[in-house]
């Protein structure tokens, strides 16, 4: 059993009539049909307020998330709505009863995310992935996001990452050493995100389809350090990690809004130390991520 994206997942795209929204919706549809052999549609439509009743490349468009759910039975939403309106789109999905919201959008103001998190904290049935993330893929079942499908092979490694292309690199390296993924999740590079390393470590630990875990972090914040504390007490499966940004200078934002060393904390060194201290196999370099998982598995025998 994979996590988050399962054979029961039916999703819609909020912002499906935008350029990126439509393009990636088409790619998700192709992946489900061509790579996973799904006969029924997994991506069942989209939402753009004011364009309800129309059709875009075969996807029915609805005015509201509630309407889309009623008509299609969707339980999940992929969000491509532009930053000024994205928080509102996430809140609409949560209010309508969507169980999993995957927010791809980059550039949402942090105060907007504070409000979103306040509301979602009171709504335990709803989980948000992202924002500013590549999405979620369960290889062989479906992908909800912008990652290239073909680099991911079905398997038993749970992959959690703050970064997009670095996740692709990791999936590719895992493939090269014969390891597929149960589910791969990009949690996003923003300061405030819906689902954290810890949330997913818990899901993977409890998932019978996952035998090992690879987590990819980066400088900024202390999410990786808290993940290490969680691993110490709760994770029994072999776990490997990589932390990007060993050479990043303090005070400079490295692309992601959250990737910044401030006040001397959030460095790669302290995160690596915390993870190693709890027995996580930390990849020496980004070229070593696939092998690190192998070493973590071998160490457990």
């Amino acid at each position, binding site marked *: 059993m994979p996590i988050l994206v399962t054979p029961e997942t039916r999703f819609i795209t909020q912002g499906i009539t935008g350029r990126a929204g439509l393009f990636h919706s088409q*790619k998700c549809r192709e992946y489900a049909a061509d790579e996973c052999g799904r006969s029924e549609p997994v991506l069942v439509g989209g939402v753009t307020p004011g364009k309800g009743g129309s059709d875009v490349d075969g996807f029915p468009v609805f005015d509201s998330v509630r309407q889309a759910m009623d008509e299609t039975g969707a339980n999940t939403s992929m969000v491509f709505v532009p*930053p*000024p309106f994205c928080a509102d789109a996430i809140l609409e999905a949560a209010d309508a009863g969507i169980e999993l919201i995957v927010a791809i959008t980059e*550039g*949402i*103001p*942090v*105060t*907007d*995310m*504070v*409000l979103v*998190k*306040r509301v979602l*904290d009171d709504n335990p049935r709803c989980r948000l992935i992202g924002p500013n993330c590549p999405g979620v893929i369960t290889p062989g079942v479906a992908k909800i996001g*912008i*990652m*290239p499908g*073909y*680099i991911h092979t079905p398997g038993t490694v749970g992959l959690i*990452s*703050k*970064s*997009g*292309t*670095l*996740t*692709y*690199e990791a999936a*590719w390296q895992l493939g090269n050493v014969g390891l597929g993924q149960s589910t791969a999740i990009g949690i996003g590079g923003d*300061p*405030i995100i819906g689902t954290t390393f810890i949330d997913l470590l818990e899901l993977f630990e409890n998932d019978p389809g996952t035998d090992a875990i690879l987590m*990819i972090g*980066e*400088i900024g*914040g*202390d*999410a990786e350090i808290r993940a290490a504390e969680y691993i110490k007490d709760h994770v029994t499966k072999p776990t490997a990690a*990589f932390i*990007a*940004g*060993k*050479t*990043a*200078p303090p005070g*400079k*934002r*490295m*692309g*992601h*809004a*959250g*990737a910044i060393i401030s*006040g*001397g904390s959030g460095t*790669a060194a302290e995160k690596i130390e915390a993870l190693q201290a709890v027995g996580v196999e930390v990849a*020496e*370099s*980004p*070229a070593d991520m696939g092998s690190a998982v192998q070493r973590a598995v071998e160490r457990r025998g």
Partner: protein
Amino acid sequence: MKIHEYQAKQLFAAADVPVPQGVVARSPDEAAKAYEELGTPVAVVKSQIHAGGRGKGRFKEHPDQPGVVLVKSAEQARENAERMLGSTLVTVQTGEEGKQVNTLFVEQGLDIARELYLGVVIDREVGLPVVIASSEGGMAIEEIAHEHPEKIIREHFDPAIGLRPYQARKIAYALGLDATGVRSAENFLPKVCRFFVDGDCSMTEINPLVVTGEGELLALDAKVTFDDNALFRHKDYKDLRDLNEEEPTEVQAQQAGLSYVKLDGNIGCLVNGAGLAMSTMDLIKLHGGEPANFLDVGGGANVDQVTEAFRIILADENVQAILVNIFGGIMKCDTIVEALLAAYDSIGITVPLVVRLEGTNVEKAREMLAESGKKIVSATDLTDAAKKVVGTLGA
């Protein structure tokens, strides 16, 4: 986005946060006039640069001149301004190269009873803004956290509700303020928090926050950073931006939709994705090289952006080799190579270029590179790429 102290204080004043009287001066004459205007026997002339540590900072051209100075006459204001304006201030935060001072802020002298620390930031873990306060004003918060962790007060607040007066009192009592100070805090702290939220700040820092002889709170310094993602809601902020304070190449990159940070090494990097870009820097270092920059061309880079990226990398005189690392997902490798070859011709790249490609259409892309007849070194994986680019420097 960072702004100057004087700009932050103007915004504070507009938000009813108490600040000292101050006047902006951009010439020695204006500085002298500012002193007269303020009418206090003592005034403070403060260099306006984005970096902190100004008081202890000294000017390259005038090694005895501090970045913040007390003056007791218009003539003294003028003399100091003459040495400060146009000169280069070096502080612990500017690096050796320092920053040119083009603006001064002349402020009234104050009767100061106590110096406190106040900051508002977003607590990522809790997902809420948090007020950080300490009785140890004037010190950097990192220093306080290190030396007196017990003297740091934290109070979270809901941005929709704001900081409540009881929370302000809680902070005030913890700071040991007297009755007048507590009443002042009930007014002062919620207003700073409201400013933080309404202004979409990522940081508002007042260090020191002073208690005057009368027991009132006053923002003696002001450091404000705005959330770049929220600038679309604050069209007026663009007037506050001081491009002199920013690395010109970083501004240029931003305009081209690229994310670029200049570093001190000699190996230029062009990568897609922030995480992979950081990792590429790390890998270069691991193999004995020094990265010259962080550069993320983003997910959908076109020929113009890739060309601009090469221009920006090559504008750095230290760059002696370039490593291109692309994991083509949605962005196809052949598209990148097409852009790369076009850029190669239009710019005339003379330094060694090592290219590592993986992902969608990689075979076709590698063929295009091989057939181009250009002096481009192909690498098969990350390690190979890093070794090869470091190797070009040894030769």
